């Protein structure tokens, strides 16, 4: 795309920097606004005998308590299955579950008052707090999912070696800097306007409608920007939006709910932690002939999006490798912890870490470098191109990506240097070890559920030539708004400054999908292109009439409409169109072609295309203390024909660092009673500025137009870079391997905290 000669910045960047960008908590407050704070359960499971709010009566300020009894509609916001209340009614099923909401005139008063409400409980069953217990007790949120290919039994028997093992993959809190927040304004005739920090305004609209028993048409769900989402505000935002709407319904006053960090971390879902059990059968060379694998994911107390998360984990288990026979069973475990949810990668990173851990163990077993094992297992015409779920990997770009990254990272020389460094450390009785490792990655783009793959946009051209853009995607920092604006500008051949970006609003574009699955620009970019194109065609038709020429003689260029040696400015033509009663407004719609999926059999063609990428990371380890850091990272990512290289590089760097956090320092700790202990940044450590690689080079794959017809042949970018951080996890294993003769790096669980690393070193 060549809309501007320079790449536009994030549309809000200057206002971010001056503090003028308005988030929901920054919006002007009406005089009669009430603030709400949730009352959270103090035990992991049980029956509610009584909610005692007597103490609120003694307070010198106004309060009002709201419980499930006040809900006029259904106490239900499950995005997939029913049984997911916004407020616990009879039973509660995790420690921290919202049981009531207390309203007051200030947020401080509401939070204080909420702490005075007592919940009298009757204990029923013993809580289930970990994956193995859930599995043993067959506590599942849905039937096991089975992905099968070939004859595992037979191939296993024919393998030269069989290797079994297990490992854990920890969860992760989203830690968006802006906690969950929503503000609802009641209007006349049962109308409600809900502003919420959501990735899915339509689901908020549906959830509020269900809870209040009001049709969607009466509810406008809006959001200008989120202070970070990362999947955490895909389905979960609806819970808190519905709470604010319930408060507004009961009091008929505007109600805002903004969670404090402690409540946000306690009462909102996270990345699923997984436990993996596997047996792999392979040849002497390391070719995987059979993989028998069991994935346990922690769904938490209710299903939420855990089903599709498991589906994506299962369909990313193959990563870049052709696996001859596979039997993978996914169990979504039901535990008495907060319901886990979408998080950047959506199960993909867990599936891919699983196969990489397995390949690492195979390489250890055969005493060969993991890259050698990978090399003979990659998808290729020789090995095969059919994924376990049936989709063909048409043109794998893995070779191109690897060639590029080997070159950029000076990989081979560095492997040698690191061996020398480690030997030198060992000989001098020094504690440092280095490791270097590659992570190749293939990531499927599209929601696994075909119906979600649709987008809508609404474009108005005004008679002064200014253009107003609206679409179904939400802006959470990823730069979607500027990318879609670029698309519109390119269609009309005007400067991107001429496009006015507006808040996402279900009243303007209805029935939208969540901004998730990296699909934001694919879906909304194409929808906006289609809307713009409809208007453009009408304008060009009119211009042809004005110039008395054929339509094909009209050229749009640099804000002007040119025909031979005559021309009009875009605004002149817009005005003329209005004068001549030509509509300058259009919706646009797009649905992703080619995809189909059988969720029962886990077969089909779920992904419109794949993105490819690779990273090489160098890790440093202190074998005395278990401390570690990343020294250098190179990344090559396939973004197709990038819509905005700067924005894409930002996504790659940020996603990679988020992945580093997941795999190293971010550790969710629970008490034996199921209480989350890490409920703030003082105890839950996400990466800081010193935790990034000192040498950090990111490159987009060049000349890499998408083979599929996406918007300007670009590719999605949001999620895939996160899992490239697995390169660092593997580099840590390499460093552990060189610490002494006897170490077993394959024992390393994620996150690789100093505690975990030292455990492995001493094992």
């Amino acid at each position, binding site marked *: 795309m060549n809309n501007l000669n320079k790449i536009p*910045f*994030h549309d*809000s*960047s*200057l206002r*971010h*920097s*001056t*503090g*003028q960008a308005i*988030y929901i908590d*920054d919006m*002007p407050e009406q005089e009669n606004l009430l603030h709400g704070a949730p009352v959270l359960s103090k035990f992991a499971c049980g029956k509610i005998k009584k909610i005692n709010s007597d103490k609120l009566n003694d307070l010198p*300020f106004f309060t009002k308590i709201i419980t499930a009894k006040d809900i006029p509609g259904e106490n239900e916001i499950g995005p997939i299955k029913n049984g997911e209340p916004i407020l616990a009614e009879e039973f509660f099923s995790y420690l921290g579950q919202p049981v009531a909401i207390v309203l007051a005139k200030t947020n*401080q*008063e509401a939070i*204080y008052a909420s702490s005075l409400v007592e919940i009298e409980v009757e204990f029923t069953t013993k809580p289930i707090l970990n994956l193995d217990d859930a599995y043993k007790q067959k506590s599942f949120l849905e039937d096991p999912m089975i992905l099968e290919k070939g004859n595992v039994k037979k191939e296993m028997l024919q393998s030269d070696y069989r290797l079994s093992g297990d490992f854990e993959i920890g969860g992760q809190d989203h*830690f*968006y*800097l*802006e906690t969950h927040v929503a503000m609802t304004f009641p209007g006349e005739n049962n109308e409600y306007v809900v502003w919420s920090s959501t990735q899915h305004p339509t689901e908020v609209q549906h959830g509020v409608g269900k809870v209040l028993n009001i049709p969607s048409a009466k509810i406008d769900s809006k959001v200008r*920007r989120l*202070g*970070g989402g*990362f999947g955490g505000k895909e389905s979960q935002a609806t819970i808190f939006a519905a709470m604010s709407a319930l408060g507004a319904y009961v009091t008929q006053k505007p109600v805002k709910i903004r969670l404090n*960090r402690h409540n946000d971390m306690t009462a909102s879902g996270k990345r699923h932690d997984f436990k993996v059990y596997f047996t792999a059968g392979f040849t002497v060379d390391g070719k995987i002939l059979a993989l028998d694998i069991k994935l346990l994911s922690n769904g938490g107390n209710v299903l939420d999006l855990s089903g599709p998360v498991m589906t994506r984990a299962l369909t990313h288990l193959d990563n870049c490798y052709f696996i001859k026979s596979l039997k993978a069973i996914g169990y979504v475990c039901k535990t008495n912890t907060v319901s886990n949810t979408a998080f950047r990668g959506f199960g993909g990173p867990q599936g891919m870490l699983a196969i990489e851990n397995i390949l690492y163990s195979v390489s250890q077993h055969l005493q060969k470098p993991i890259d050698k094992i990978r090399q003979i297992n990659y998808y290729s015409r020789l090995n095969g191109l059919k994924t376990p779920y049936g989709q063909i990997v048409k043109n794998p770009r893995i070779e191109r990506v690897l060639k590029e990254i080997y070159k950029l990272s000076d990989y081979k020389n560095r492997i040698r240097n690191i061996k020398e460094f480690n030997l030198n450390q060992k000989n001098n009785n*020094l*504690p440092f070890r280095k490791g270097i490792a590659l992570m190749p990655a293939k990531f499927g783009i599209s929601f696994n559920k075909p119906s979600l793959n649709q987008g809508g946009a609404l474009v108005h051209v005004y008679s002064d030539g200014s253009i107003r853009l609206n679409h179904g995607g939400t802006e959470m*920092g*990823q*730069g979607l708004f500027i990318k879609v604006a670029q698309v519109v500008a390119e269609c009309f051949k005007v400067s991107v400054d001429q496009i006015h970006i507006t808040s996402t609003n279900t009243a303007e574009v209805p029935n939208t999908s969540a901004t998730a699955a990296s699909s934001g620009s694919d879906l909304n970019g194409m929808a906006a292109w289609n809307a713009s194109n409809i208007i453009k065609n009408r304008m060009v038709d009119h211009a042809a009439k004005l110039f008395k020429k054929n339509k094909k003689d009209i050229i749009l260029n640099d804000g002007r409409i040119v025909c031979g040696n005559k021309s009009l400015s875009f605004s002149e033509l817009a005005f003329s169109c209005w004068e001549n009663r030509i509509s300058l407004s259009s919706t646009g719609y797009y649905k992703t072609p080619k995809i189909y999926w059988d969720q029962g059999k886990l077969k089909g063609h779920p992904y419109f295309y794949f993105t490819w990428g690779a990273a090489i990371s160098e890790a*440093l380890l*202190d074998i*005395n*203390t*278990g401390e*570690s*850091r990343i020294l250098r990272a190179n990344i090559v990512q396939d973004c197709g024909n990038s819509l905005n290289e*700067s924005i894409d590089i*930002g996504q790659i*760097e*940020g996603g990679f660092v*988020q992945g580093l956090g997941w795999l190293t*320092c971010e*550790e969710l700790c629970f008490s034996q009673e199921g209480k989350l202990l890490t409920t*703030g*940044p*003082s*105890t839950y*450590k*996400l*990466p*800081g*500025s*010193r*935790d990034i690689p000192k040498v950090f080079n990111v490159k987009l794959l060049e000349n890499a137009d998408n083979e599929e017809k996406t918007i300007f042949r670009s590719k999605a970018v949001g999620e895939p870079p996160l899992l490239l951080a697995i390169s660092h996890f593997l580099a840590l294993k390499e460093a552990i391997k060189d610490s002494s003769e006897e170490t077993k790096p394959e024992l390393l669980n994620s996150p690789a905290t*100093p*505690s975990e690393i*030292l*455990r492995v070193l001493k094992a």
Partner: protein
Amino acid sequence: MAELINTILINNKKVEVENIQHDITLLDWLRNYHKLTGTKEGCAEGDCGACSVIIEDNGSGSSRPINACLVRLGQVIGSSVTTIEGLGCDKNPHPLQVAFTKEHASQCGYCTPGFIISGISLLNSNKKITDDTINDAISGNLCRCTGYSPIIKAIKSVSNEKIAKNNNQTINKNKKINFGNVTYFKPSNLKELKNYLNDVKDFQFLAGGTDLNLHRPIINQKEDKIICLDSIKELNSIKHFKEKIEFGGAVTIENFLEAIRFKMPELIEILQRFGSPQIRNQGTIGGNLCTSSPIGDIAPILLVLNSNLKVFGRNGFKKINIKNFFKGYRKNILKKDEIISSLELPIANKKNKIFSWKLSKRYDQDISTISLAINIRIQNNIIKELHMAAGGVAATPKLLDKLCKQMLEKHLDDSIEFAIYNLDKFIQPISDLRGSGFYRLEAMRGLLRRLQICLSQNKKSLSIMEV
């Protein structure tokens, strides 16, 4: 006498503090009473930096970044506060705000104002702008979107840009401030403090408040009397002597760090990792000791240097040794009316070597899982003098004197082997969310190995950051 009006200078404008029903934080006041919404709440525990503002005490001339969520409004009456809105707006932005745009240093933008406040504070200091000083300056700010590199680039691209100094408007510094049920008393010297100690009943002391304010209720239902220590002249003094430095109890961690930067460079790394600039500029050394946390990054250092403390109370001064200060988990020997008025930091003998190490999940802005301070003298590989103290291994910071005694007069290698082998007889650390008991014990053994290498191979610190 009529009560003086409480005023604060915000972005160079004098603002009267009115209609405050409850004792609230500076952050809530800025956002809710003045709609200065560029300052964000990210965590309300001083760990994310989204609420950073620059504060300048009336007349002090030195500005410093702090977390507005950890400071109560009553603490900053009479001070000057600069928020993100005071630096520039889209029509007239500060060069650093422009740089953040140009370098794509914001994505969701929620953390951005806080980073800019930290960046400006660095640019306004006399420090050289390097990757290292930038990382220090933003160690109290979290960004979840960008992965930090563009932020570092943006700050680097704008060197030597200083903001205009606040004009010298003088504003009232009231001695008694009342918000809702809370009364703040602000003595300006020890004599005034003594008067308050005699007159005021049931009070709490407050120095910086970075710990205490975390535990204070969001709404004060009961009456609360706070005696603020930060304005007391004597408690802010730093006196250099030949063999020691004497610090007033309310000296901030940051000023403590700067005062010893060249005299005891061995301690700089651990102090640089103490909280963040925002915390170090607010928290005080006396306050750090008085919280008596089992970790207390400063306590192990003072223990191995055999520091003396001066305690001040209703009955005047008394002197005690740091060894006798801690009594149990978050308990110390101070009576209700006593404070640490000063502490001395003995400058170690040149023949001695000082080490101070901290292990945590994250390098910056994290609480130690364990820490270890060592003061050692060896002669011909024989340990002649040894003091070790550890944090995070017991209910209080722990002087390992019994172990040290057994290590004396032995060959370095033998005595460290002995210590490693027998360590579990001297410490029995527990498991918690910062690390397992197993880890604490093994990592402590690892630090002893590190000590051995440092001494035998003449290495300064063997920090993972130096590789």
